[in-house]
């Protein structure tokens, strides 16, 4: 046996299957989809946004709309569900009624020019009514990102600011947290450590503990445990990691965080020590990808 045998599939086998050939159905569909893209990304005001804005304005009554003359996307929009205000590179969001229909949220985001859909996402009890995501299933300009800043001083259910590239025209799917069913995976894992400053005795002070201690605690609570091992790869503290099966985890390693991933499950995040070379552990299958935004 040699390294060649470790290849999960070989080109000469793959080419015998239609899927391995450029003439296959999937390959053709992908080619057509790519070639349908404009080759030079042009940053210009989107005509489609204007259409969304006007359509929403025309059909809705009980809303606040602040637009710009001659059909630019509206800059402010509010209905019973949510209030939105757009700026240069951001959208301010105030969720008025998390129980409102997802369609009411969708309508508001579309009115301010986003090709958005809003869906209810399963979350931990403390995240119910909060904004989840966004998920960007389309192509996102490289070198840019989306950040969500939560505003603590909020009179409504949730206030915050989404920073994202101006004129982003791809699909955006936002979630509004709904209580997850027992055992249903949370769209947003919840950190169990460190405890909140307001309650230093609360929470699970797992950070810095040995894995074996945390494991005992979690097993006592009847929680299923998965492990995520992280390596600090760069001087700025950023790094990467992946899931690793329990059998490869040393009980003496140090826990960086414990995140609740469902009502009955936790993910123990471990900061690999200097004696564990980066990416040296066998990789376990990752947890199932979130599907709430596709349902």
């Amino acid at each position, binding site marked *: 046996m040699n390294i060649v045998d470790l290849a999960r599939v070989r080109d000469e086998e793959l*080419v015998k*299957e239609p899927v391995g050939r450029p003439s*296959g159905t999937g390959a053709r569909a992908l080619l057509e989809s790519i070639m349908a893209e404009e080759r030079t990304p042009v940053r210009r005001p989107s005509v489609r946004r204007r259409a969304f804005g006007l359509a929403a304005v025309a059909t809705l009554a009980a809303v606040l709309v602040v637009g710009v003359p001659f059909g630019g996307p509206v800059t402010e929009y509010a209905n019973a569900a949510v209030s939105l205000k757009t700026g240069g590179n951001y959208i301010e969001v105030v969720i008025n009624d998390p129980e409102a229909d997802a369609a009411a949220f969708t309508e508001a985001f579309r009115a301010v020019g986003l090709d958005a859909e809003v869906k209810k996402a399963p979350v931990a009890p403390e995240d119910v009514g909060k904004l989840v995501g966004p998920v960007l299933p389309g192509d996102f300009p490289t070198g840019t990102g989306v950040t969500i800043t939560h505003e603590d001083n909020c009179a409504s259910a949730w206030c915050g600011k989404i920073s994202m590239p101006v004129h982003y025209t791809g699909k955006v799917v936002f979630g509004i947290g709904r209580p997850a069913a027992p055992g249903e995976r949370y769209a947003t894992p919840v950190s169990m450590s460190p405890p909140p400053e307001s309650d230093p005795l609360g929470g699970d002070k797992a950070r810095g503990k040995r894995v074996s201690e945390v494991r005992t605690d979690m097993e006592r609570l009847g929680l299923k445990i998965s492990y995520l091992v992280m390596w600090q790869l760069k001087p700025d503290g950023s790094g990467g990691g992946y899931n690793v099966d329990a059998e490869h985890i040393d009980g003496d390693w140090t826990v960086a965080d414990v995140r609740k991933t469902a009502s009955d499950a936790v993910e123990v995040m471990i900061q690999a020590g200097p004696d564990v070379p980066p990416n040296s552990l066998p990789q376990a299958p990752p947890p199932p990808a979130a599907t709430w935004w596709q349902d």
Partner: protein
Amino acid sequence: MGVDPGSRFEEIYGSSYGQLLGYALRRCLDPDDAADVVAETFLIAWRRLEEVPEGDEARLWLFGVARKVLANQRRGERRHERRTAALRAELAATPLVADLPGEDLSQLGQVFRALPEDDRELLALVAWERLDPGQIARVLGITRNAARVRIYRARKRFARALAAAGIDHSRAVALEGSGL
């Protein structure tokens, strides 16, 4: 160049698609992730067509892009759900791909996976993509000499790791189709 962009891209796609899909499937446990890597890589090629070199060099350029796409791919993140829908369905319906084993649990597999990522990729490019040091140099954007040295060192480290695990490595590191 004299060829319209559409024709040129179709030519590159036609000659590299299978090998790029193979490259991605060998490195992703989930075929859906592999489909996403293929889509992202070709989309980058489409947008930066002027940068894609001619002939077989295009394939090496695509491997280099795919390597970066893989490095940036976040767990569970699918950027091209819609454009890969048919491809994913076809992959799922193809027993060769759908029934692929998970991680190789043999001793050799474990030792290989325990190597530093760069070593693994170098040895994989030799053994799986059957590239020579000059081609690997172009995939990685380094000189041919640097590629030779890195492959030599990766192979040494692999041999040492195999020896430490008690595996007879004389055949394990005999890389098929290469003079290394």
